[in-house]
């Protein structure tokens, strides 16, 4: 579990507006899915990234969590996971005796090994209504999973 301090640092870290990657290039947002997972989604609900954070976060642990989240909808391998340590000095925090603040693990959809530029590819989206993932053709405008649509 992340500490309150790590959570606060992460809130600041992800209070940015990145560009949607692999879909529309529109401004996207980081949404906190649960206590240790963040999803980068654009207005069309395409998932650019899924990120885990915590003091003990590591690639193996995140790979297991990610497989559970995407339920076979995405091809996930260990090589697709990248990790990063965030320290007091690069976050601009004044904490001399507590250098490591949080560890992050990143997964990016359709990146490097899994890169697919086909306009017909099946892609991962996050439902606007529920916090659940679903797949549909990457160019689809639908923002809801099957159960919310029905």
């Amino acid at each position, binding site marked *: 579990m992340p500490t309150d301090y790590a959570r606060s640092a992460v809130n600041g870290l992800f209070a940015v507006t990145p560009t949607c990657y692999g879909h529309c290039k529109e401004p996207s947002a980081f949404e906190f899915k649960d206590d240790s997972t963040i999803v980068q989604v654009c207005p069309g609900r395409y998932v650019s990234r899924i*990120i885990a954070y915590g003091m003990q976060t590591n690639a193996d642990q995140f790979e297991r969590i990610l497989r559970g989240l995407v339920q076979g909808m995405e091809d996930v391998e260990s090589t697709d996971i990248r990790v990063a340590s965030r320290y007091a000095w690069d976050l601009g925090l004044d904490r001399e005796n507590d250098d490591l603040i949080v560890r992050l693990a990143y997964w990016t959809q359709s990146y490097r090994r899994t890169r697919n530029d086909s306009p017909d590819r099946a892609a991962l989206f996050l439902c606007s209504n529920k916090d659940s993932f679903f797949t549909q053709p990457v160019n689809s405008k639908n923002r809801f999973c099957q159960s919310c649509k029905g």
Partner: protein
Amino acid sequence: MTDIKAIHVVHATWCPHCHPTTVEPIEKIAKELGIPFFSYDIDIPEQATKGDELVRKFGDWSEDYLVPQVFIETREGKIQHVLTGYSESVDSTKRAVNNLLKSPLFAKVNAHAN
């Protein structure tokens, strides 16, 4: 805080988090401070071997790890990982590099140089 003997950066030439966001400002400050600067391009095999070793032993290692990664080597011979690029945005990486260069880690080196 320990003194810095050298700075090492693992990078890729195609990576906007590396160039001009990280490598150039770090190299500049190393030059200003008279500290040796070593860079390892992950796409040049002989440099990649050393870069991989640094990241595996001291950094944020994964099979296809993030770049840039910055390490400082202290006068006691210790190597310390101090920064990994911020995947969320190039601006975030830029801010982190600025923070690092203004941090107490570099403040002592700055003080010695002045």
